[in-house]
């Protein structure tokens, strides 16, 4: 047995040698290192087409959630681990800008008007600090339609309604320090109600049994009543009901969940792509091509159902799934980048004190 085990491991070692040799030979052409968050997803064929057209080898590196990814980039800013980054959103942009990790991009994609600007300081085309918007979405409440029908409870009409006893222990949110959805939602309340009123609302929500989950997955799959939890109101995305139809068990035509657009509870998240400072100069052309690629018709079409986001390209056509089940809210909240930058950490600590401690 020992001998067999030994020869088996020897064979594996040989195999790994061959594999690494193969890897080395593939690295002859230019390699473009793209840093993204874990939610990045595009069809393999679309990415392969880019590789072929640009004549590069794509190396996608996933750096955790968007916030984690940015921190990894900041930590390694002296020796960048990627040439281009996708996934910096309007909540992270001020921090990325302050850390000086972005090299502004001014190519064609930056000169076409985007459907959603990166932030309040963006130019006429929506580009801010050289970050080009790629897609956007809305963080908002989703409700479990069947639960509300069963209980005969009317839907809350405002954030204040949620603090009433009728809605005791019905809401689950994500921790703003570890979830970008959670952070966006906190910012929506601050923007919609004003800082003090917002934290007052959070204090009353705490008294009314709001549950705080670590991230979106926990909240949606563990606590949301549609998936076995007890809470029929969850912070999610405006496109989630459409995804529920798309990925349903049986063919269904109406989503089992619905958006609940309340004032002060809708945050628009705009995600962009940018060049990284100090990146490999030989990959610079490829990095610029990648930015153009992210705004190309193919990607703008595919991302709608692979990442469930709205395309930033103004001319991009909406896919059926989004057109039918993911209407955009009429109004939403956002915050100026300067306010965000000055207060983000203080708000987090204040939230922590008010809701958890």
């Amino acid at each position, binding site marked *: 047995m020992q001998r067999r085990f030994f020869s088996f491991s020897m064979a594996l070692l040989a195999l790994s040698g061959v594999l690494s040799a193969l890897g080395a030979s593939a690295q002859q052409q230019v390699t473009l290192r793209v840093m993204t968050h874990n939610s990045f997803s595009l069809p393999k064929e679309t990415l392969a087409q880019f590789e072929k057209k640009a004549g590069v080898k794509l190396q996608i590196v996933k750096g955790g959630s968007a916030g984690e990814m940015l*921190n990894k980039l900041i930590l390694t800013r002296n020796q960048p681990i990627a040439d281009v980054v996708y996934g910096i959103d309007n909540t992270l942009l001020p*921090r990325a800008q302050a850390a000086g990790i972005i090299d502004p991009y001014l190519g064609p994609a930056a000169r076409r008007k985007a459907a959603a600007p990166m932030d309040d300081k963006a130019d006429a085309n929506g580009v801010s600090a050289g970050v080009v918007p790629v897609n956007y979405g809305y963080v908002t409440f989703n409700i479990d339609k069947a639960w509300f029908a069963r209980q005969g409870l009317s839907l809350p009409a405002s954030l204040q309604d949620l603090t009433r006893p009728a809605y005791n222990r019905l809401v689950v949110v994500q921790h703003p320090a570890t979830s970008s959805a959670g952070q966006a939602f906190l910012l929506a309340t601050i923007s919609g109600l004003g800082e003090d009123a917002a934290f007052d609302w959070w204090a009353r929500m705490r008294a009314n049994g709001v549950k705080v989950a670590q991230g979106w997955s926990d909240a949606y799959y563990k606590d949301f009543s549609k998936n*076995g939890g007890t809470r029929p109101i969850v912070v999610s995305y405006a496109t989630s009901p459409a995804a529920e139809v798309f990925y349903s068990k049986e063919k269904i035509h109406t989503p089992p969940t619905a958006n609940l657009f309340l004032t002060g509870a809708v945050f628009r998240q705009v995600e962009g792509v940018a060049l990284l400072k100090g990146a490999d100069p030989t990959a610079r052309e490829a990095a610029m091509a990648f930015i153009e690629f992210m705004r190309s018709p193919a990607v703008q079409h595919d991302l709608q159902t692979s990442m469930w986001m709205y395309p930033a390209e103004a001319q991009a056509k909406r896919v059926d799934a989004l057109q039918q089940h993911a209407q955009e809210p009429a109004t939403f909240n956002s915050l100026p980048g300067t306010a965000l930058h000055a207060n983000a950490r203080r708000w987090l*600590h204040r939230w922590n004190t008010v809701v958890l*401690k």
Partner: protein
Amino acid sequence: MHKMRRASGCWSILFLRRWAPYMLALAPLLFVVVMLVAPTLRLVWEGIWGQDLAMGLSEEAGTGPAGNAWSIVLDPDLRWRMGWSLMQATATCLLALVLGVPLAWVLARWQFTGRELVLRLLMLPFVVPTLVAALGVLALWGPRGWLGAPLAAAGFELEETPWMLLYGNLFFNLCLLVRAGVQALEQVSSTRLAAARTLGATAWRAFWRIEWPVMVPWLASSLCLVFLYCFSGFGLALVLGGQRYATVEVEIYRLVAHELALAQASRLALWTMGLNTLAALAYAWVEQRLASPAHVTPLPRRQVTSLTQRCVLATVLLVLFMVSGAPLLAIVLRALLALANTNSMALLLNEETLSALQNTLVFSTLALCFSSLLGVLHALALHASEIAGWRKVAARTASFLPFAVSPVMMAFGLLLLYPQWSASLPVLLGAYALLAYPFVATALTAALDQLPASYTQAAATLGARPWRVFWRVTLPLISPALRRGASFAAATALGEFAVSLFLSRPEWTTLTTLIHQHLGRPGASHLDAAMLLSALLMLLTLGCFILIETHDRSVS
């Protein structure tokens, strides 16, 4: 002339004997320093002396209670977190001991149908991703679970209580203690036990005087592991315990990964590392004092015959089922239901799943080989070295180092120290091996301690060279321990609990990452797909264990 040559031969043998342990230790030592110590120190350095990276986000860095090393003692919130982390880890250890020892005894002493299967199934909780395990636990005990719903109706709500977290801790860690206990009981000499019984000792007394002392070093080693896992675990605590019962490790994770507040994180991490080291020291001390080599003729297992025995067996197995089996069964049931969902099958029947399966197998095998090699070298070096006393205790403690260091600190330290390598496969595989190899090292250390020197001395006297002695005598004798260590190492590699902290690439997607990806998207079919993949992962693991432990005495 002839004499001189012989003398020089003697010298070289002496030289070899003196330096061999250091040469053996070189590879594991180098590996731990490069992969773990250096990156962690680098991050601590950055945190304390580097530029403040939290930048605009950090408030009054360096001043106030957050600014000094005693902040943990001064800040009531951190104090509570530290206290709670310690308390839940200790409570889990105690519970695991109370439940695990009878279980181990029954599994080691009695023969019954399905015994082997139970021993292998025991390890499955180890590979299940945390969120999936939590879904399994909640399907049972959650407010809408099979047992949780009636309890909730009766006014006992378990969600968001410390009980849930303790239950989850036990679910994941009971197997560590039981496996060690079974292994220990195999080392009890049947002659000594028979002598005690002949002299009139009751079974109970014989247990306390003969069996228990043999078990203690083994149990100490596994309890130390349970403590380290619970103290610094973070996924489970959050998912089951909720924010209030989050551990210190969660705080470190938040500070490092999301706020880049390295100074504060470093202080906290140094504290936890210190506490972890104390736990590891306690284990090393117990093992050092109590382990003694002995010739062992293991006790043959008895068939379960009487009604009382059957009742005891049923009770013990029921406890095991309630702690570790039921949540797994819930996952399997959900996976079976998901089989009927053709949409989720469509999500799975593609190239991506196949390549994830392939990656899982290749990465785990490589990590297993690498960690086994390092573990064997580590244990042999420790065994061969002539150091004694506190130095040996320190050397034993070192084998727990990879568990004592916060994985978040290590992952970000690697990024800072080797940015160009951080997204490369060797680093990822190295991380797997690092987190797996202490299992092999500690299991082998314990086995080598029990090995009487006379066996190898006899072989050497008969003219066998050291390598031959190792290959023909030592290795076969320690192989059950090697297999036990290797199965835990394999389980760790397959479950790869810390993998989300490292940089990853889509082409390296493994089953675990794929499960996380599905759970990151809305839609019933994604949930079903995650359940199916989890069941597949468990099946794969079971297959692995059967392969690794085919000829293990303690199992078959």
